[in-house]
């Protein structure tokens, strides 16, 4: 793979359209999404700065 290429703009634009469509879907026809507890947990972790279970450590890739 050469170093001077770029991510395919068509792929990027398609992905963005899909994400925007997901946003429109939820606005126009809200329905209970799966994984609500996990989403809330991710937001709560963010507010706390780091996941408390990980004791404020950033773990090394090849261990925990």
């Amino acid at each position, binding site marked *: 793979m050469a170093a001077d290429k770029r*991510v395919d703009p068509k792929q*990027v634009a398609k992905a963005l359209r899909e994400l925007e469509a997901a*946003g429109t879907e939820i606005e126009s026809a809200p329905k209970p999404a799966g994984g609500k507890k996990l989403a809330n947990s991710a937001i709560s972790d963010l507010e706390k700065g780091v996941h408390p279970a990980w004791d404020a450590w950033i773990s090394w890739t090849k261990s925990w």
Partner: protein
Amino acid sequence: VQQQQIILKLAERCNINCTYCYYFNGNEHSYASRPATITSEAVDGLQYYISKTLAARHVDRIQVIFHGGEPLMVGRRRFGAICSALRDTASEDQLDLCLQTNATLIDDRWIDLLSKFDVKVCTSLDGTQEIHDRNRVDRKGNGTYWQTVRGIQLLLRAFEQGRLSSVACLSVIQPEFSGRDAYRHIAGLGFSQMDFLLPDLTHADFVGCAKDYGRFLIEVFDAWIEDDDPHIHIRLLKSIMSVLLGGRSYLAGFGTDLPNALTVRSDGAVELDDFLRMCGMDAVHTGVKISQLDSAQLFASEKMVSLRNVFNTRPQFCKNCLFVASCRGGQITHRFSQANGFRNQSVFCDGLFDLFQHVSKFLIRSGIPISRIPGIQCDQPQV
């Protein structure tokens, strides 16, 4: 630096022979010229370094990760003596002891030791027997699943009894299998802390299809979402959610956090973060022994400055990507080639793109507007 991780090579040999091992079956074979188990001088040097560094307040806490090879090959008696020496060097709130093990040697006597010195344990299991035995084999090529699971069951029982403070699982992704099966199996054994690792591959050795790795991780993600249990932590996926939402990564070298761990070899030689090893010995060599190490000097050294620059520079390839602010080009080692250094896109780029898009969709469908997900760079040229 508030925290420092030291990867301590207790043993530079292993009792099994995983086909994908970056240490023994990778591009670099310096283990063969090192002592099989750590020398007393290296342990003394580490004690000296820890006490000096904490006293000078260069860091607040140090985490020593017992690593290998298989670190338990050092033997129970020496392992206990090393833990005891390290615990005598610093208080428990300043020093974490962790172990990365294949779990095949674990027995009740090992658990007594790990419990006595409050060693956090992380095991290696790739999934079901079929998945695990594909690559994690002994020297005769036989699968190690049952020896591993026997050790894991002892560790998890000790965790449930409160004798061990942490027992986690690392799994190397096998893209020919189902991510859902791997996740379900690991969670089913009783792990609540786990991660799925992209294999240690650079542009020199990557073959296959990056999208298959993305598909595997998306399957893990979907199964995890179905369970919807916030007590189950999948580090990479939690990190992706966090960096998309503008937070930090929980994983060194991925997203927001620099790989700044140090490796101490069995002879006391200090090297940079072990995961850079697949980019060649030049990438990690420092020429310093742990007893002589001045961490402030090392972190200001040309090599560390250059590593920080690499980490903070995105490849040109990523410039117009939706996820450049969160993915940041993936792990730097996955970008490496002899010809271009770290200036390539990740070998896993296509898979990471799919995964970031999938997780973003989940966040949006959970009710978070795209405008409040800073990890998505929306101002892309439309085609």
